[in-house]
């Protein structure tokens, strides 16, 4: 049995008929072909599947697709525009990316966090990303990247519309 699903993904409206036993991660990666969001454990523990749902970081692998009906989802593909988002730029420049598999999830959690807490300490940042596991970096450069994105980007209202999600 399929149910209608209507939601906004990275600023674009989508109307799908989907089986309700599919997760949001299935829909994003398989049905819509956006493979930036990753599957790491499927149990909501590693955070590699983090996306923003109405601006809040959530584990897409634990959300049943129908739950996002009428909502807005932002994935890493919707983070930047023509230029890199300040967070993406900071991750690149601060060595916060090694294998890169945890990176999309980290970026989305960071974005959700900075939207609410534009002036965090590094400790605040580490607490915010506690649900995102990284096995390569030891987290130091990731925290620094998020910190520098918070303070160097200016966070002005002139930032792209998608930043409001």
């Amino acid at each position, binding site marked *: 049995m399929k149910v209608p699903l209507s939601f906004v993904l990275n600023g674009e409206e989508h109307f799908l008929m989907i089986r309700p036993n599919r997760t949001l991660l299935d829909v994003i990666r398989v049905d819509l072909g956006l493979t930036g969001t990753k599957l790491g454990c499927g149990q909501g523990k590693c955070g590699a599947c983090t996306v923003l749902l109405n601006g809040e970081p959530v584990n897409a692998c634990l959300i049943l697709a129908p739950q996002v009906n009428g909502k807005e989802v932002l994935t890493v593909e919707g983070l930047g525009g023509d230029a890199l988002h300040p967070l993406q730029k900071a991750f690149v420049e601060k060595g916060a990316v090694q294998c890169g598999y945890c990176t999309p999830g980290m970026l989305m959690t960071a974005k959700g966090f900075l939207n609410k807490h534009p002036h965090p300490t590094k400790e605040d940042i580490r607490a915010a990303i506690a*649900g995102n596991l990284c096995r390569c970096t030891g987290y130091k450069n990731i925290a620094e990247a998020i910190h520098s994105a918070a303070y160097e980007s200016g966070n002005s209202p002139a930032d792209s519309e998608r930043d409001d999600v």
Partner: protein
Amino acid sequence: MRIRPFDYQRAESLHHALQFLDAHGAETKLLAGGTDLVLALKAKTVAPTRVLDINELKDLDYIRPDESALRIGPLVRHARMASDPFIRQKFPALAQATGLIGSWQLRNVGTLGGNLCNASPSADSAPALLAANALAVIADVNGEEEVLFRDFFTGPRASLLKPHQILKEIVVPLCDTRSHSMYLKLMRKKAVDLALVGVCFQAELDVTGSRIARVGIGLGGVAPTPIRVPNAEALFSGTGYREALEALPEAAEAAVTSANPISDLRATAEYRRDIVRVFVERSGRQVLGNLFSEVSES
């Protein structure tokens, strides 16, 4: 890791939901946040033919203090519980506990009702509610009843809720005198883990402000259900600060005795018991110290 097909319905109102459950409760699972349900569906530990999505029931999503109690709707997300100013002020342990559930991602989705109805013996929200003597409002098509959370949990992953019933509201009695509470959670790392042991210590002063009127101690992860420890709590009635501090070790021992933990891959029973002792004393000391800090010693 794949989920078997099920029939999906969205509840349009509480009434609709109750009627649906009355007809199909036995083969239905409720979808709120879904963080526990989806895990169970993937693990095939549950196999409902129907899933009823109650997320649209906005009138189950509220935090509403009145004169005698704080009333919380079951659909309140943990993230909101943890940051709500009223809860942080009046029931700090409840805010702490919900703030320690899983990760931020989980807390944005998981609900108080879900955590309670999942009824894990180590449910983080339970010890604080037990310590606060909270009640569950259970509803079905025929009406509602109030049950103390002390009686709500019946076994590991089991509660009084029958398949045709919903947890409609959580009622936390308000204390009009000074009170304080604290939740300590033993994890295997600094964050994002379930509770190997969870301890809540809540104390309320009497009208004079110099003696304890009531202590509530809730334990999670050390028995088939979250439990209260009346023997330990009784030691504090009517005590002043010094007496209360002196009663802590005995209270901790009483808590250990009431606990009945298992040994599993996460911890041994013995270690869990030791932690109960340590945490009751630690949280007690902290709460009492905070409570009596403006009161001269008697």
